[in-house]
Structure formats: structure tokens, C-alpha cells
């Protein structure tokens, strides 16, 4: 009962947030609604018992992708009014693609009697643990390979964007900490009425 209640809560907020993503005028609001949609989709995953996927959705999509979108929207000077101009022109295409997707969903919905029943695996192992168990044993080779690919991405991004600029004053921590009292200050005893004589 309470699960059904939460399902409808999450599902309706997801749909509303999705609508707001495409209809709100301010692109920053769109991204924020997208994040809301992600959170509620994660809630739906939790209801399905896929807590690992839910966590992944929050960590990857909310934590990285949506923040990236937010940066792009806020930092790039994109004229969103111009982007909206083709709305009428692209409407038929969009409706066509949407119609196909809707037809597919309806097809699945009305043929769901033929679908295999979802089998609930009753065991003590949570699916995060189960995934970890095969990821770090059976698939350790692929796991390491994925690590190398990520390393390539990191090195590549740095190698392509890091430019050494000349004539830039940088903080040199080593030389700062190497400063001693002796070579940076000088104690001068000043006789009265004469002032400091610079040597």
C-alpha cells in the first residue's frame, strides 16, 4: 500500500519535472528540474529493489552530468531564444519520434501478459555486493582495462588543454618556506632624531 503510494508520488513528480524541463523559460530552471527528475527516478529504482542503480543515478547523473549541464548553461553564452525559433518547423519530426516511442510503450503494455514474470531473487546478498563480487573477481580484467581508459581520458584532457604561459607570476611555495628570518628582515636600531639610513 505504502509502496504504491510512493510509486505514484515519484512517478508523478518525475513526469511533471520532465514537462517543466522542456517548458520552463529559464534554462537554469530546466537543469534544476532535470535534477529533480533524476532524483525521483532514483526513488523509483529504490522501490524496484535496485538500490545500486538508484545510487549510480544520483552519483553519476546528478553529481556529474547535471552539474556539467549547469556549467555549460551558465558559462556559455548561448542564445536560447534563437534556439527556440525552429519549434514550429521541428514539431512534426518531434511528434513523429514521440509517437513511435508511445506506440512501442503501448505495445509492450498491452502485450505484457506474454512477458515473463519478474522473479524476485530471495537471497541475503544485496545487489551492490553481488555486483562487486563479480566485478572484482570474474571481470577484474575488464575492470582494470576501464581504469586504463579513464587514465587515458584524464591524461588526454590535460595534455590537450594545459598551456604553459610565459611571464605569469606564480606562487612558489618552496621559495616561500625557505625564506629565513635572516634574509628577509633587518633589525635596525634607530637613534632618535636621525631617521633610518638606507645602506
Amino acid at each position, binding site marked *: 500500500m505504502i509502496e504504491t503510494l510512493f510509486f505514484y508520488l515519484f512517478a508523478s513528480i518525475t513526469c511533471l519535472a520532465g514537462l517543466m524541463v522542456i517548458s520552463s523559460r529559464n534554462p537554469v530552471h530546466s537543469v534544476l528540474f532535470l535534477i529533480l527528475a533524476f532524483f525521483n527516478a532514483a526513488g523509483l529504482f529504490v522501490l524496484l529493489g535496485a538500490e545500486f542503480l538508484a545510487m549510480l543515478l544520483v552519483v553519476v547523473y546528478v553529481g556529474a552530468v547535471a552539474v556539467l549541464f549547469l556549467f555549460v548553461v551558465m558559462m556559455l553564452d548561448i542564445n536560447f531564444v534563437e534556439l527556440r525559433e525552429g519549434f514550429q518547423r521541428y514539431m512534426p519530426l518531434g511528434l513523429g519520434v514521440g509517437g513511435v516511442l508511445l506506440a512501442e510503450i503501448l505495445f509492450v503494455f498491452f502485450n505484457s501478459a506474454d512477458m515473463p514474470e519478474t522473479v524476485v531473487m530471495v537471497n541475503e546478498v544485496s545487489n551492490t555486493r553481488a555486483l562487486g563480487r563479480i566485478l572484482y*573477481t*570474474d*571481470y*577484474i*580484467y*575488464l575492470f582494470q*582495462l*576501464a581504469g*586504463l*581508459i579513464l*587514465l*587515458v*581520458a584524464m*591524461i*588526454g584532457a*590535460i*595534455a*590537450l588543454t594545459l*598551456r604553459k604561459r610565459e611571464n605569469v607570476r606564480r606562487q612558489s611555495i618552496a621559495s616561500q618556506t625557505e625564506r629565513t628570518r635572516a634574509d628577509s628582515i633587518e633589525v635596525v636600531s634607530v637613534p632618535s632624531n636621525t631617521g633610518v639610513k638606507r645602506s
Partner: protein
Amino acid sequence: MLFTQMTFQAALPEYILAVVALGLVLMAAFTGESLGSRRLVKMIALLGYGFAFATTFILPSESQVIFLGLFKIDGFLVYMKGLVLIGAFFACWMVDEDWSDGVEKPEYQVLMMLATLGMLLMISANDLISLFMGLELQSLPLYVIAAMNTRSLKSSEAGLKYFLLGALSSGMLLYGASLIYGFSGSTQFGEIASSIAQNGASSGMIIGVVFLLSGLAFKVSAAPFHMWTPDVYEGAPTPVTALFAIAPKVAAIALLLNVTHFVFADIRLEWMQVIIALSVASMAVGAFGAIMQKDLKRMMAYSSIAHMGYALAGLAAGTQQGAAGVMIYMTTYIFMGAGTFSIILMMRRDGLPVQKLSDLAGLSSTHPYWAFGLMVFMFSMAGIPPLAGFFAKWYVFLAAVNAGLIPLAIIGVLTSVIGAFYYLRIIKLMYFEDVDQPLDTNAPTENIIILSVSLIVTILFLFIIGPLREWTYFAATNFPISGAL
């Protein structure tokens, strides 16, 4: 349980490259960009390739599957790995300290080594997942080093173009892989093969195979998936182009051979049509496209497309003889490529690299040795006996004829006649035209050594073809494909 001694030994070259690459990352970060540290980084990279190559001799030559079926090793794969490592060694060695268009960064060596690691891993792939991971580990560093010269618009264009089209081809490959998985129920090559043997090929499976082959055809730059090649070859810094021309193609052809002759051996009638179409298109595009080129690197791009067409002709035969022909072809290909690019890398005028065909005019009077070397490589690529390129073409066309693909062999011979035109034009430029502005005469020792080694192999191929033939024919017996249909 997983990391037994056997596992360790079978993947030894990969371990060496991975460890050296990770060490280079740290070294590059701490030693800076001075000339001395650049030399040191390059030296260590060369040692890494050398050690990895040396270990290919102690790899087991009988078929072995490790990492729970994700990684395979056998005589054929070891041979191809050896070729890739020779190619990577040459490509790394022929870059001297004078190059400054991005390749002087120590990251270049790190990325190149990781790309080589990716090539070895994709050669050894025995599972759709490890195939894709190896392929991406090979491609991603290559995208980056194509764009390494951040000051040049052409280099950035090359990197971006390569990346976008590469992403598209990866998408096609993944789509094909998902269909193959869906219709066979497994990602492991052995199980896919046995599923095909039991159930035959459904239409979904064949669509998946076609998509997979298209994705791989992009990596070997076979027409009609060749569009990126001339632009990337031209725009990328010349040392990077040399690498592109030598190593990755060998790895991609090896993967293509492994997938077609091992996994889809039972449905070869289906994939042979695709490979024949790719082969004919590549031979034609390579031969006709190169005629109008004025840039040496662009010309080499079309030349490599044509070479891939010839190699695919051997692959299209679908026999062990064809597989051996492809192995011989790739062997000659890396030596001709390394030799040619060692000369292109030496071409400088007033210290600046030049790459126009017209810069070669009268090379024979100013640089007789370079001109002789280039002449031999051009004759060899055109397929003039008794040079290496002749034997390579001989064995692939022989396999095609024996498999009953006589029209394909005829088209191949005709296009290589057309191709001879632009190879001979270079020789005419070098020997029968007057010097306009002479090129610099100082030449790095490394390039002269690579040139000499490639020259010796190309000229004396006659004497090694006998044992090489035995060797490749034996290695090809690893494929579960026997004679012609």
C-alpha cells in the same frame, strides 16, 4: 586462483607495457620538459617496447584462454602482437628531439604506449566486451595525439574529425555487438561460434555481423569508411601520422581476421560479401584518390587505403591460406611504412618540416641514399618483383584465386597497375627533375637506421619469404577454417 603463473606469462607483453606506461606518467610529471628528460622518457619507452617484443618469443604458441575467457593467446595472435610492437618501436624511435609540434610533450609517449597496449589487448580479445574495451583503449589515445599540436588548426581538425567519426564507428560496432549478443546469448567468442554452429545464422545475427564489420572497417580505414584518413594523416603531426600508418592498422586487421575466421567461420558466405565489397572499394578509392594528391602525407593516406584493400582481398578468401597471406602482407606493410615515414620525417628545409610532393624534386642529386630508399619503397608498394610488396600481393591474390574469387584478384591487379602511376611519379620527381630548393642534409641517426633496416627487409624479402611462409601457414592453422568452399 585467477592470477596463476600461466595467466601472468600469457599476458606478459601487456603487463610490461602497462607498468612502463604507468611509470612514464609519474616520470613525465616529475622530470619536466627539458631535453634530457625527454630523451630519458623516450629511452624508457623504447626499452618497454623492446622488452615487450622480446617476451613475445616466450609466449605460448598453442591456444590458451585466460581471464575466464576474456583473453586469448595463440600462435597467430602472438605473431600479430610482435608486428604491432615492432611498428610501435619504430614509430617511437623515429621521432627525434627537433620535433616541437606537440609530440615533444612527455604525455605523447605515455599515450602512445597506452594505445599500443590497447592494440595488443584488442588483438587478444576473446569476448565482445574485451574487444570493445581494447578497441577503445587503442582509439582514445590516438584521438588525443592526432590533436596534440594545439597551435595548429589542422591538427585540431584532424583530432576532432577522427574523434567524431571514431565515436560513430564505435556506436555501429556496439550496436552490432548487442545484436550478436542478443541472437547468440553470449558475449564469448567460443560460445557465439558454437551457437552459430548449432542454430545457423538468423537474420538478426547477420545484421549484427555487418554492423560489427563496419565498425572494424573504420579502424582499418577501408572504403567506404575511409573519409577520415586523408585529413587525419595530413593534419596530425608527422610523427603521429607515422604511427597511424604503421601500428593500428595491423592490430585492426588482426582483430578482423580473428573475428571473421574464428567466431564467424561458419557463416563465411555471409561476411565474405561484405569483405569483398570493402576490398574492391578500398582498392579503387586508394588507386584513384591518390592520383590527384599534392601532399605526401595525403598520398600516403590513400596508399594505405589501397593497401588495406589488398589485405582485405586475402581476408575475403576465407581460407587459412588467405589468413597467412594477410599476415605476410601486414609484415611487409609495416616495414615499407616505417621506411617511407622515416624519410618523410627527415624532409626539412631550413629546419622546418616540409611535406609536399614537389619538395622531392631532384632528391637523387642532393640525397642519393634517401632517394634510393624511397625508390625501393615505392617500387615495393607498387608490387614490382623481387621486392617485398610483390610477394605480399602475390600471396593475397593467390589465396583469392584459390578461393574462387578470380574477379576480385583481377580488380586487384588492375588497381595496382593504376596505383603504380603515383608511386612511379615520385620516382620520376626524384630522379628526372631538377632541384628547386634543396632540403636540409643533416639527418638523425635513428631515421637512417630505421631506413636501412626497412630497406634491407624490403630488398632481401626474397630470402626470408620461405621461412616466413612456413611460419604464417602454421600460425594460420589456429583458425577453424580449412580449404576453399
